[in-house]
């Protein structure tokens, strides 16, 4: 069935002249699909590389533009604002954001405005400004683009290196071969990451593909986390024993009388 459909499309492609939608195919991959956090982990850099394949049938367009969006695991966040109360600074108001990406990197070959129109950016949710970050307002889920809490959230996450928008991160090595470095700072959350790659030409989206990678704690680190989360009491007792043992060793080692 699928085969028949493909044949039909190809035939249709030959008949209707030219069919732009089938002219290019985007192939992309990452250097590593599994980032392991070990005790000497201080962040990592992945490389996204890919190529634009032309089927040689349609008219080759160009120059090409690439926008790659890396989206980390989603988790709800609270943004809090301090205010002066009785002379001291206190968290007085807060907003809950429903499952924003914990990591968001928008890598492009040129500034987004040069790649496509503002309309297209909004429709395709390209760039941080057009990424939906729904928040909880009086038990309603809403989207306020210039809300100060949202602005602060994006700013704080940018400062921590968790949100970034780099208009020159994707480089074309040849007119069809591109690469981009994804830098993950040490504090990025563990979990599954999606890399969504979009190909543009003349301001239009012509192909897209995606890839994924995961960040996992392994070995001792994972053991500690599991122990702490799932067997809190035992973990606490073990930690306390460790403290007593250290204290005892010290008192024996430094005994002077």
């Amino acid at each position, binding site marked *: 069935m699928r085969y028949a459909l493909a044949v039909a499309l190809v035939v249709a492609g030959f008949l209707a002249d030219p069919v732009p939608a089938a002219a290019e195919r985007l192939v992309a991959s990452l250097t590593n699909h599994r980032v392991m*956090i070990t005790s000497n982990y201080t962040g990592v850099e992945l490389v996204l590389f890919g190529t634009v394949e032309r089927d040689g049938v349609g008219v080759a367009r160009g120059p090409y533009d690439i926008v790659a969006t890396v989206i980390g695991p989603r988790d*709800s966040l*609270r*943004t809090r604002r301090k205010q002066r109360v009785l002379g001291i600074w206190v968290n007085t108001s807060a907003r809950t954001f429903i499952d924003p990406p914990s990591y968001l990197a928008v890598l492009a070959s040129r500034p987004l405005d040069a790649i496509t129109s503002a309309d297209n950016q909004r429709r395709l949710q390209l760039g941080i400004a057009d990424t939906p970050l729904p928040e909880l307002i009086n038990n309603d889920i809403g989207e306020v683009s210039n809300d100060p809490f949202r602005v602060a*959230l994006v700013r704080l996450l940018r400062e921590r290196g968790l949100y970034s928008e780099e208009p020159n991160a994707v480089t074309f090595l040849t007119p069809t071969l591109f690469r981009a470095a994804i830098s993950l700072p040490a*504090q990025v959350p563990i979990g599954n990451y999606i890399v969504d790659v979009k190909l543009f030409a003349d301001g239009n989206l012509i192909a897209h593909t995606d890839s994924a990678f995961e960040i996992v704690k392994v070995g001792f680190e994972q053991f500690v986390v599991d122990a702490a989360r799932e067997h*809190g009491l035992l973990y606490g007792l073990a*930690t306390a024993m460790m403290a007593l043992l250290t*204290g005892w060793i010290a008192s024996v080692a430094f005994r002077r009388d």
Partner: protein
Amino acid sequence: MQIYLPIADIPVNVFLVLAMGLAVGFISGMFGVGGGFLMTPLLIFIGVQPAVAVASVTTHVAASSFSGAIAYWRRNAIDVTLALTLLAGGIVGSAAGVALFTWLRALDQLDLMIGLSYVTLLSVVGVLMVGESARAIIRSRQGKRAELRRPGSHVWFHGLPLKLRFKRSKVYVSAIPVLAIGFIIGFLGAVMGIGGGFLLVPMLIYLMRVPTATVIGTSMVLTFLTMVSATVLHAATNHLVDAVLALILMIGGVIGAQFGAHAGQRIRGEWLRLLLGLLVLAVGLRFAGQLVLRPDDLYSIRLIGGGP
């Protein structure tokens, strides 16, 4: 050398944390206090979340006070009855403190509470200690002898029911104020990540008239017992104790404490108290500045899920 802390979720420099352990250990050995009131702010300063810092420091203080307690045990300078009575209050206090800690964290007010308690407690204790030791220094300059224990002086709460005889300390007082002191120390320890030695020692000396000889050893026993229970409670309820962080801290801490204790013996008691008072006051003022001055950033974010 960077090492990744599994619970705090940040990489830290091992030597930096080790050096912090050594420095705080030195001070704690010198003055006979746990040093939690210095360690917690330092950890927060290097980027550990306040909640993880408080929870992990309890473990560190447990280790350093345990090694101190063993040393005093060998010198037979511990009043076991007194320590156990204080502990009974302390465990209840720890549980109440951990519960408050969990509740405040949910309300976004944990950082404020930690800050406020540090300011109030450290400023008050710091001022009292500086004042008392300055008077003692002036007195000794004038050639008079300091009188810490006035026989016959009797405060109303010594006469409450449930009288207990604390043999090694040679006092015969009601157990109620002793339990109350234990409760306060356990409570503050859990909320602020401090052992409370710098509070307990003056309380026992001035309020309960316990002789100085048994006070420090007894306070060490209590500190280590409350800190052990706070560690277990924090681990079981909030899952925030970072064992790797705690281990690095305690290794530095116990080594530093030995050198500190050595240095402490060369300084006269009232000067030691003056120095400690100034230190306590300085940390208190630092926290006060943080609360009163306009913060660089009015906004902060917190994960709602598993993380702090």
